[in-house]
Each structure stands twice: as C-alpha cells, then as structure tokens.
C-alpha cells in the first residue's frame, strides 16, 4: 500500500478512533466528577447568567491588557488564521463534509441546500503564511522570556509542533515544493493525524475545555455575586 493510500485509509481511521475515544474519555471524566455541595446562600439564583463569562474571557482584563498585548494579539492572529485555513478552503471542506456524513446521515450541503463559502487557494496560502509567522513568533517569545521558558514543558512544545506541522506541510503541498506531490500530500495528511492522536492528551484539549471551565467558573461567580 503506498503512503497516500495509507494516510487516507487506515491511518485516518485509527487517528479518528483515538481522537474520539480520547476526547470523550477526558470530557466525560471531567463532567461526571462530583462537586462539593455549596451550602452558602446564593446571591443570584439565575446562575446561568454567568455563562456569559465564556464570551467575556475572550478579551483580557483591563489590568493585564497592556502587558500581554503582544502575545494576546499574536494568539488571535494564529487562531483566526488557523480556522480560516481550516474552514474556508474547499479541499478541507470536502474532507470535513465526508467526515461528518455518518453523523448527519448524509451530505450536509445536499440535505440543507445551504453551502459553506470558501476562498481561493492563493488567499489561503497568504493566511497560512501569516499564521505560521505568528506561531513562530509565539515560540520565539516562549523561549526568549525567562518566565515562560521556565514553566514550559514537553506538552507546550509538542503541541506547538503538531499545530504548526499541518500548516507548513499543507503550504508545501499546495506549492508542490520539495518532493513529488503525492508524498507532500501524504505527509500533510499524516501530520493532521498526528495532531488528532495527540489532541486528547495535551493542552490542545483547551479547544473543548475552555467552554467548560469558563462556564462553570462563571456560574459559580454569578451564584456568589462576584464580578465576572
């Protein structure tokens, strides 16, 4: 079996299995934890209003904004760029559509009649370049700042690697640079599979957990009457 068939076939299958299994394990494992009963008198009964913390925490608090402006901005550039490349490029959309077919029982586009917009490959390449630049800048900052370097561990560096690799290999594949196209495409797909396999076991789980954590914290604060 050649590398591309392997990457599109068994490797993808196993990577998805590990991803689904791992993510559900960790999420369910957290959701089903016992919470200590709170015997205090709630200040606000409508604690669900605290869920707005999820949205509020997307912007830094005034006290810290100036100090962390650079990393915060770079973080946003990276995240926004990453999602643009992932969700607005046609081959990725075709891949995701096919992936979610068993979940929805059919092709979502054909079922709903709606279509998701996409932009041309050239725009994606530029976005990808900017995203990789932001990632590299963030890594440099992490290594250069003595505090960040001290507290960084394997998880931090490896998560950076498995996030950057798909972007870089994807751009190389698009540009047909460095190896025959089949090889570049296979390496790109394999790098995504590495990301999927690592995802549940490192800090990449923040993609799901930030909503959980912010929601729970927000509800708890709201109940206590603390400022969000």
């Amino acid at each position: 079996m050649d590398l591309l068939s392997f990457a599109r076939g068994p490797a993808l299958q196993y990577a998805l299995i590990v991803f689904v299994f791992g993510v559900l394990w960790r999420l369910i494992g957290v959701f089903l934890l016992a919470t200590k009963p709170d015997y205090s008198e709630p200040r606000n009964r409508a604690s669900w209003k605290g869920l707005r913390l999820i949205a509020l925490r997307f912007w830094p608090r005034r006290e810290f904004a100036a100090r962390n402006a650079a990393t915060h901005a770079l973080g946003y550039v990276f995240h926004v760029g990453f999602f643009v490349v992932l969700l607005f490029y046609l081959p990725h959309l075709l891949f995701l559509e096919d992936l979610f077919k068993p979940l929805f029982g059919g092709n979502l586009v054909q079922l709903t009649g709606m279509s998701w917009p996409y932009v041309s490959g050239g725009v994606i390449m530029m976005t990808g370049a900017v995203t990789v630049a932001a990632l590299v800048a963030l890594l440099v900052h992490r290594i250069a700042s003595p505090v960040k370097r001290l507290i960084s561990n394997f998880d931090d560096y490896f998560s950076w690697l498995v996030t950057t690799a798909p972007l870089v290999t994807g751009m190389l594949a698009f540009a047909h640079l460095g190896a025959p196209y089949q090889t570049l495409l296979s390496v790109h797909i394999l790098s995504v599979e590495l990301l999927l396999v690592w995802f549940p076991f490192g800090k990449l789980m923040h993609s799901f957990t930030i909503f959980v954590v912010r929601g729970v914290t927000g509800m708890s604060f709201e109940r206590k009457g603390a400022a969000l």
Partner: protein
Amino acid sequence: MDLHGTVGEALKQQGISRRAFLKFCTALASMMALPPQAAAAMAQALAKARRPSVIWLPFQECTGCTESLTRSNSPTVENMIFNMISLDYHETLFAAAGDAAEAAREKAMKDNFGKYLLLVDGSVATGLDGAYSCIGGVSNVQMLEEAAKGAAAIVAIGTCAAFGGLPKASPNPTGAAPVAALVRDKPVINVSGCPPIPVVITGVLVHYLTFGSLPELDELGRPKAFYGETIHDRCYRRPFYDQGKFAKTFDDHGARNGWCLYELGCKGPVTYNACATLKWNGGTSFPIESGHGCLGCSEPDFWDKGGFYKALPTGNWGGGKTLAAAAAAGVAIGAAAAALARKRQADIAKEK
C-alpha cells in the same frame, strides 16, 4: 520478404515512402516533446535499425490495450509501428490459431533468443497455481517465465500488466500480479493506463528501436517522457481550479461552463499520464474535456482508492460504525475514570 532486415528495408518493401516515414518521425518527435531536429536523426537511426522480433502475450486482459493501438481505418502514426516491427506472435491478431499459433511462438522465441521484445498486456493470474488463466493448457505464469528467459526487454502494456489493474482490485480472487512482480532479472517498462494512450506505446517502442535502450523511467517504471507530469499540471481547466470555480454536480451550471471537476472526484492531481496534452482519439478530447473527472487509471490500485466520484481530499476510512464504537468506549472509560475519582473523593471526605 526478409522479416529481420532493417526497418528501412521493411518499410520500403511495404510501400511506405521516405516522406511518409519522415512525417511519422516528425509527428512522433513532436508528441514525445523532442526537438524537431530529432525527427531527422530518428528517421536515420530507425532506417538502419534491425527490425526486432516482437512477441505479444495477452494474459488476464480485456483486449482494450490491443484495441487502443490497432483500432484505426488507415495507417496512422500510432499503428505504423506494426510496419516497423516483426510481430511474430499476437494471440488476438493472429489469423492462425491453436497449435499453429503456438508453434509460431515457439519458433520465434527460439530463433531470436535473447533479442526479442516481449510485450505483455493483462495481469498474470497466480492463484490456484496459475489455473485461473491458461492459454492452450499453459498457465500465464509458466508462459511468462518461459518467454521472459529469451527476451531482451519486457514492456508491460496497460495498468493490468504494469500494476495488476482491475483483476487485482479487492478481493483479487485470481491472485492477479503485475509483470514486474514476477520477472526480476529482465528490464521491464511499465506503460500504464486503462488503456494507455496509443502513441505512448508507439513512442516507447520507437525509442527502443532508435536508441537500443530503454527510455528514462520513473520510480514506478514508467517512461518519464509521457508520465512525468500529472494531469492536473497540464489540465486546461486549471485556471478554474485556481479561481475556486468548481462544478458541484454533473450537468449543473458549473459543469456546463467547463469548470473544474475536483468536487466530482477528479483524481488529476495525483495521476501521472499524458492525457491532458496528447489527448485521445488522435487529439480529440480526454475525460476531463468531456466533462468527467480523471479516474487515475495509470496509477496502481486505482480501483481501490475509495471511489471515482469521491473527491480527492475525502478519506478512505472505515465509516461511522467504528467511530461510534470508539465513542461508546470513550464514554465508558470516562465514566469509569469519573467513578474512580468520585470514590477517592468520598474516601478522602470520609477520612476527614
């Protein structure tokens, strides 16, 4: 007629003029992307070359490759090759049959031992000791082994001979194998395609005749002159791909305006062949120009790559059932982990 004199003599005896021959060489040089000056050199070299003995063995095939080369009403660039070689055996084209044909083959192999060109189309059935495909009681495996012994070189014509093709597709009931998997000690050129473009077959044979050696081959044994680029790299619909204009279904607005067929399963980006430049039926058209995505027919195992109408980025993964099982397992393990954590919390609380 001296069957094994020079090519030039053979052509003269068949009434093909020098001008016709030069025209043939010019057209072929153009298609092989050689400089036009090469045509005259090719004509000179070919005229002096000894007419080789060629034995064509058809195995587990559909005859499409032979048809591709021979189907025409008049001498064409593609099938003029038959005037230049001495086709000493071709199962399908021979008028003689049975013992007479077998005798002709054996005689040709004996008389030209070590010098004949062996052309093979169709995959070799190896299952059941080769019983799945026999000609005159002799299995393909045996016939190939015997014929390969005295061959100067072997040309595997068509994806079946080059990579196994349709018979080798899952579950491969006959144990179909490509020629190169069975013949290790002789040079094998793979001219893949289902069928291959006729002039590609001719080009390879002419190269061998002119230069007495095999053309430069890629890592799958295909001549780089014809298989060096992907369909995508030369596709005339490439501007639409670059602009993001794709046909969503057959016969929709995009399809009628000739937009890119990527979403309809075109495998052009990963298929190496000359269809986009040389085209088919004397340059009439090729699948994409006729509105259907590339099947990837010159690549190994193209039948098992997921589906002709599934776009290239879609995975060829198992399906929802295993993921559902994985999800259930994840939930179960998560619940178990939570239960363990709760028990520990309760123990700690109790200790206090």
